[in-house]
C-alpha cells in the first residue's frame, strides 16, 4: 500500500512540475531560450494568490485573476527583455533571464518582506481518502487541474487554427511567416499561456504549503530545465512524461536513497544517465 501511496505522491509532484515546465518548453520550442525567469512568474502567481486573498478576502477572486495577470507579465518579459536580443547566442538571453530572476526574487523580498506570507485562513484544508490512499484535497485538485489544462492545451494545439499556426512557427518560423502567420502574435500567445499555467501551479503550491516566500522559485528555476531537457527541449509530450517520471522517481528516491544522495542529485543523476543513452532526451529529434 505504501507503494501506491508513494506512486500517487510522485504523480502529484509530477503534475505540479508539469504545469510549470510546459510554459518553459513552449518558450524553448519557439525561441530557443532557457527562460529561467519563468520560475519568478510562478512565484508571482503564488504571491498574488496569498496577498489578494488576504486583502480582499476572496480566494476565488485571487485564483481567477492570478493566471491572466501573470500571463500579461510573461508577455511583458518577452517584449522588453527577449525580443531585442533574439538573434544573440543562447547564453545571452540565459544570463539576462537569470538577472531578471534575481531581480524578481529580491523584489518580492523588498515588497513582501523576507519572512514569506501565509493565508490568514488557509482555504481547502480538507483531506480525502481512497481506500488506503489518504491525500489532501489540494493534492487531488493539483492532479485534476494539471490534466484538464494540459489536455485542453493539447486539443488547442492539435485542433485549432491557432494551434496549427503555433506548430508551424515552431517547426519553421520563416516558412510559417511566408504563409501569412503572424509570428509575433504567436510568441505573445505562447508567453501568455505558459506564464498563466505557471501561475496556476503557483496558486496550487501556495495552497499546499500555505506559505509563499521570495525564494519559492529557486528549485523550479533549475529543476524545470532538467525536465524540459529530459523531455527533449521544446517537446510538450516529452515534457509531460519527464515531469511525471521525475516526480515518481523523486518520491521513491527520497525514501529509499535519501541517505545516499539528496533529492536534487537523484533528479540530475537520472538526467545524466538518460542523456548519455539518448543525447536528445526522451522524445527529442535526433
Amino acid at each position: 500500500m505504501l507503494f501506491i501511496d508513494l506512486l500517487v505522491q510522485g504523480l502529484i509532484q509530477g503534475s505540479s512540475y508539469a504545469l510549470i515546465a510546459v510554459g518553459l518548453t513552449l518558450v524553448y520550442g519557439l525561441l530557443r531560450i532557457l527562460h529561467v525567469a519563468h520560475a519568478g512568474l510562478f512565484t508571482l502567481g503564488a504571491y498574488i494568490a496569498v496577498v489578494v486573498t488576504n486583502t480582499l478576502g476572496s480566494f476565488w477572486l485571487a485564483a481567477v485573476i492570478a493566471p491572466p495577470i501573470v500571463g500579461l507579465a510573461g508577455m511583458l518579459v518577452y517584449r522588453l527583455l527577449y525580443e531585442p536580443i533574439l538573434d544573440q547566442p543562447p547564453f545571452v538571453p540565459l544570463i539576462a533571464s537569470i538577472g531578471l530572476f534575481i531581480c524578481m526574487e529580491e523584489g518580492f523580498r523588498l515588497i513582501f518582506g523576507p519572512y514569506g506570507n501565509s493565508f490568514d485562513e488557509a482555504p481547502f484544508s480538507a483531506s480525502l481518502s481512497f481506500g488506503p490512499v489518504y491525500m489532501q484535497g489540494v493534492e487531488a485538485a493539483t492532479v485534476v487541474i494539471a490534466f484538464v489544462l494540459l489536455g485542453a492545451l493539447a486539443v488547442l494545439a492539435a485542433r485549432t487554427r491557432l494551434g496549427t499556426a503555433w506548430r508551424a512557427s515552431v517547426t519553421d518560423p520563416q516558412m510559417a511567416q511566408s504563409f501569412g502567420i503572424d509570428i509575433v502574435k504567436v510568441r505573445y500567445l505562447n508567453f501568455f499561456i505558459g506564464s498563466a499555467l505557471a501561475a496556476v501551479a503557483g496558486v496550487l503550491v501556495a495552497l499546499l504549503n500555505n506559505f509563499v516566500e521570495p525564494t519559492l522559485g529557486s528549485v523550479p528555476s533549475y529543476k524545470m530545465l532538467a525536465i524540459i531537457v529530459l523531455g527533449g527541449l521544446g517537446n510538450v509530450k516529452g515534457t509531460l512524461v519527464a515531469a511525471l517520471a521525475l516526480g515518481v522517481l523523486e518520491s521513491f528516491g527520497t525514501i529509499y536513497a535519501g541517505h545516499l544522495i539528496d533529492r536534487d542529485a537523484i533528479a540530475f543523476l537520472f538526467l545524466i544517465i538518460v542523456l548519455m543513452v539518448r543525447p536528445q532526451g526522451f522524445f527529442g529529434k535526433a
Partner: protein
Amino acid sequence: MNFKTFLAFAAVSAIALTGSAWAESVKIGFNAPLTGFAAADGKSALTGAELAVEQANAEGGINGKTIELVVYDDGAKPDQAVPAAKKLIGQDGVKIGISGSYSGSTRAAAQVFQDASVPYISAYAIHPDITRSGKYVFRTSFMGEVQGRAGAKLAGEMLGAKKVVLITLQNDFGKSLAAGFKSKAADFGVSVVNEYQYSIKDRQFGPIVSKVRADNPDAIYASGYFFTAGPLVKQLRARGVKAPIIGQEGYDSDKFIDIAGPAAEGVIITTSLDRDSKKPETMNFIKSFEAKAGFGADMVAASAHTAVKVAVAAMRKAGTDDPAAIRDAIAATRNLAVSTGSISFNGLGEVTKAVQNQVVKGGKWRHHSVIDDPALLAPPSE
C-alpha cells in the same frame, strides 16, 4: 506605545542624534544574512541586536560612550563573511564582533576575529568548530548536539515515546541535532526506527509523510526551520499522522504557527526563549521586540539580543577598549540574566544554560517544561 517606552525611545533618539556630535562612541560589529535564502533570519537577528543596542544606549551606553552597531550583510556565505569581518576590524575598528549569521559564514569570520585577537560571539550558529577557532570566540546559543540530546530526553522521558522516527534537515543544523538525539536515545528508552532526510529547499514532503504514516511511530523528531517545519507539520497532520511532533529552536517563530495553522497545536520544541517567563529580562525583551518589530519575538532575535547584551555587559565590566580585557570579561561571565536565560561560559567559550521547552497551545507558543540537567546539556569543553 506607553509613556515609559516612549520616554525610552525619546532618550535613544536624543542620544542617537546628538551622540555623534559630542560623545565618543564605541563600535560593535555585526554580520548577518540580509539578502539571499536566509534573509528572514538575518532580519530577525538584526532587529534583536538593534534592540539590545538601543536599550544599552538608553541605560547610558558603555561607560559613558554611545554604542554604534556596524552592520554588514554576508549572505550566509563564508567568502562574503571574510571581507566583512576584515572590514569590521580593520576599517571600522570594532572592539567586538557579533555573528547573527549561519554556521559557514560564522566559522569563517570567527577565524578572522581570532587571528586579529578581537572577541567574537556567535548568536545562533551551531557549527561545533566555531568556538574551536580560539579563545576569542564564544557562543551564546546551544550547539546542535546539545539540543538534540535534550530532544531525546523530551521524547523518551517526558513523552514516553518508544518508537521514534527522525525527519532530518540535511544541513549542519539538522545533522548535528540528529547526531545528538541518536547519541542519547537509548538512555531514555527510545529506539530510532527510521530516519528520512530532506533538503532546506524542500517545502513538499508527500513521500516522507506517506512513509511516516506507514511507520506509525510514537513520536516524530523533525529538525527544521519555521519555513520548512511549517509546511511539514501541516502536511503530516493533513494526511492523518497523529503522533506527537518534537521540534527545536528553528521552529521558534510565530511564522511557524501562521503556516501550519491548526496543525501546529501540540507541537513541542526545545529552545531557549520562554514566552511565559516571569523573568524581567525575558518579559521586557518580548514586549519591546514586538513594539519595535511589529511582530512577535523569535529565537533568532532573542539570541542576537542575548549576544549583544553579553558583549555590552563584558565591555562595561572591562572598563576599557582593550580587546584582551574584553575577552577576559566575557569569559568570566557568570549567571548573567538575559532574554534567553542565565548565561555562563565553559572553558571553550560554549554557553551553559537550561533548555526551555515550548508547546503550541491556542495558536501561541507557551511554556511546556524546562530541561536543566547539567550533565546532559554539557557542551564539549575542548
